[in-house]
């Protein structure tokens, strides 16, 4: 039993190292970026967070911004799960696993982003010894994120491993967890929003609309990422992605982005029509304050991208993949800016004492972020690399893996041979 499982891990390991030149190039590039990120982080670890652009005035920056964004991506995996298990939409069935694997990769990236943000990561174990639960929202976040990681690892791991052994998965072992994961997905993003919303000293965050907006924007950006990922999987592997699945996702993105824009308008109206002192951060973000306007170009780019994406998605032409992909890319970037430069940073400007200090990330900080993104892409590629032959029944416990290794190392020749054999 355990031997069989270890053999599965060993085979997964071998499979993930075999591929044609495109695969090797992709993995090499990701590895190099991840190592550059590790190098930058080691520098930060030795010298302290002085290597970042953060200050006492702006004490959270790019790390927390990426963390917030990726929590949304992870939560959005559930948008594939709901149609399958609640509405029994069969088209998405296999795709659920790719969505949940994306959630796993995203949560791992989240945990890395939180870790690199810590001043004393060597004291991480203090969390286990004195855990300020339920008072501190950060402890809630630790629980829900790790819980979500465990849930998704269990669901994907169980389904994939059953398929590998050629057994039928027992519903009892995964269906209840699927439903827990659906609720849990909403909770991870809600808790992350509450982390910011609960701070009375930061009026920009201290608004009830933040949590619903988080969910809406995540459910737009997350499925958009999945749309692009699935097409990449379809192009670079033997896996065929059904077009109706992409169209279902398009619907989800469309609705979520519409709600997100509506909530944004509600927020802007409240801030600017009232025009109280509480709107200082919003004024800084959208128009600049006392001659400082570093974030103004960012937020208008985000709003432009999101608006164009919304219009594109409402056009029938977005049923074509080119327009759909363009809309997805625009809104992924738009929402990333909205969460980072548009939500985390402006809450610190002006400072609670009215001082305006602007924030610009350093090269080292950007390298750490890129490194984590590359690492996330790396593990996701490996997950998918192993999952596809398992789902198609080619990688099985009772068969040697030489055929898979050959097919992976020479995909074109393998295809020719397959055709030749048929003829």
């Amino acid at each position: 039993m355990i031997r069989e499982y270890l053999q599965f891990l060993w085979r997964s390991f071998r499979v993930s190292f075999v591929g044609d030149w495109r695969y090797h190039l992709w993995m090499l590039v990701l590895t190099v970026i991840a190592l550059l990120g590790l190098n930058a982080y080691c520098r930060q670890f030795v010298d302290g967070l002085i290597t970042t652009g953060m200050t006492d005035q702006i004490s959270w920056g790019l790390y927390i911004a990426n963390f917030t964004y990726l929590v949304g991506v992870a939560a959005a995996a559930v948008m594939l799960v709901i149609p399958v298990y609640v509405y029994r939409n069969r088209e998405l069935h296999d795709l659920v696993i790719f969505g949940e694997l994306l959630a796993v990769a995203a949560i791992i990236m989240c945990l890395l982003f939180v870790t690199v943000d810590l001043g004393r990561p060597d004291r991480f174990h203090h969390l286990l010894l004195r855990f300020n639960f339920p008072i501190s929202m950060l402890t809630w976040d630790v629980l829900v994120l790790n819980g979500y990681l465990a849930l998704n690892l269990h669901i994907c791991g169980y389904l994939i491993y059953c398929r590998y052994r050629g057994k039928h998965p027992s519903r009892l072992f995964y269906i209840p967890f699927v439903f827990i994961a659906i609720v849990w997905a909403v909770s991870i993003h809600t808790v992350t929003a509450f982390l910011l919303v609960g701070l009375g000293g930061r009026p920009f965050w201290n608004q009830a609309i933040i949590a619903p907006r988080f969910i809406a924007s995540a459910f737009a950006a997350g499925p958009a990422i999945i749309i692009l990922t699935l097409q990449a999987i379809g192009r670079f592997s033997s896996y065929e992605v059904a077009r109706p699945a992409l169209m279902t996702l398009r619907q989800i993105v469309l609705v979520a982005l519409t709600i997100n824009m509506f909530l944004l308008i509600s927020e802007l109206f409240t801030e600017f029509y009232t025009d109280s002192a509480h709107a200082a951060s919003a004024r800084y973000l959208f128009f600049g304050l006392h001659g400082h306007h570093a974030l103004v170009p960012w937020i208008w780019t985000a709003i432009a991208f999101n608006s164009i994406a919304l219009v594109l998605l409402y056009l029938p032409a977005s049923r074509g993949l080119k327009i759909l992909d363009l809309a997805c890319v625009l809104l992924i970037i738009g929402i990333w800016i909205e969460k980072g430069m548009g939500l985390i940073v402006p809450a610190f400007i002006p400072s609670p004492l009215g001082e305006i200090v602007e924030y610009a990330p350093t090269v080292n900080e950007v390298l750490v972020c890129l490194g984590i993104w590359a690492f996330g892409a790396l593990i996701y590629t490996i997950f998918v690399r192993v999952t596809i032959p398992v789902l198609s029944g080619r990688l099985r416990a009772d068969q040697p893996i030489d055929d898979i290794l050959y097919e992976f190392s020479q995909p074109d020749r393998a295809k020719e041979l397959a055709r030749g054999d048929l003829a």
Partner: protein
Amino acid sequence: MQLPVLDNSRFGGGRGEFQQRRDRPEVSRRRFLRTGLAAGSGLAALAAAASPLSRLAGVDHDVFANFFQKHYKAMSRAEIDSALERIRRDVGRRYGVAATVQDVRPLDGVEFVYALNLSRCNGNRRCVHACVKENNQSRSPEMQYIRVIEMPKGTLDVEQGNHHFDSEAVPDQEHYYLPVQCHQCANPPCVKVCPVEATWQEPDGITVIDYDWCIGCRYCEAACPYWARRFNFSDPVIPSDELNPDMSYLSNRPRSKGVMEKCTFCLHRTRQGRLPACLEACPTGARKFGNVLDPDSEVSQILRTKRIFVLKQEVGTLPRFFYYFDERYPRSGEADTADDSHDKSVKHGGTS
């Protein structure tokens, strides 16, 4: 930096070669060598990426004791004593200074409050620098717990203030000066948010940090409405001859990089009957400090008789730091007891 070498002969050649490779022993040996080479280069690249770690200072002999040191509140008397001894040793090693490191406990029946007379403060910033010296803050970059804001007369909106005024002489007739430091709130948002309970409110109302427990997430810094907390973005730099050797565990002992710190009302002084360093340095008499539970204390009298206010009352933090202006004309016909609610604890009496 070295990068992993990837095996690229694997995707040249025809199918025959693939078959042969599996059969011929010398090919599999070559493959083994190639795998080894790739793994070796990968490890070398990893080592190169991690190379900045070699700049970490050598392991000192207290590293394990420090790692396993418990939370301040969980330590026994003996454990605290050995922690104090370790701190003393560390100060000796790093600065060559023989320090006294105490664990000064709060006194019964004492709740400290601060009162600041804005009519007197003239913006000379002596308090700021006395605080830096007293509390062993980093000098490079200099960290300050007190921020004095130059405010235009006629407003309390800090956004209109100037944090970096650099006048030839103070006070300037157009402005008044608003010093802000930790308000030692009775309902502190910073304490609520800490995930590891590294910061808490002591019975005498002072919010402290266990610098050896803080993980450096800076959530408290985001939560504080008075911008009273500071983070050590790098290792603090203090010249040995400027180090204040009179230290305590919860206040002015040297901090490490990556942890938070803040004003503690100089608890190593005030819990032993002395006044805070900022007050002692103030040449104008604007600063008043004392026990609010003692009805005869100066601060109790100020809270009773002056028209006091707190900053950002709407955020509900119940500060123990009060501001007031001298009244130009005495109020006639008003009894001293009009504001009687203030001679109780801040916690119970509130600020209104």
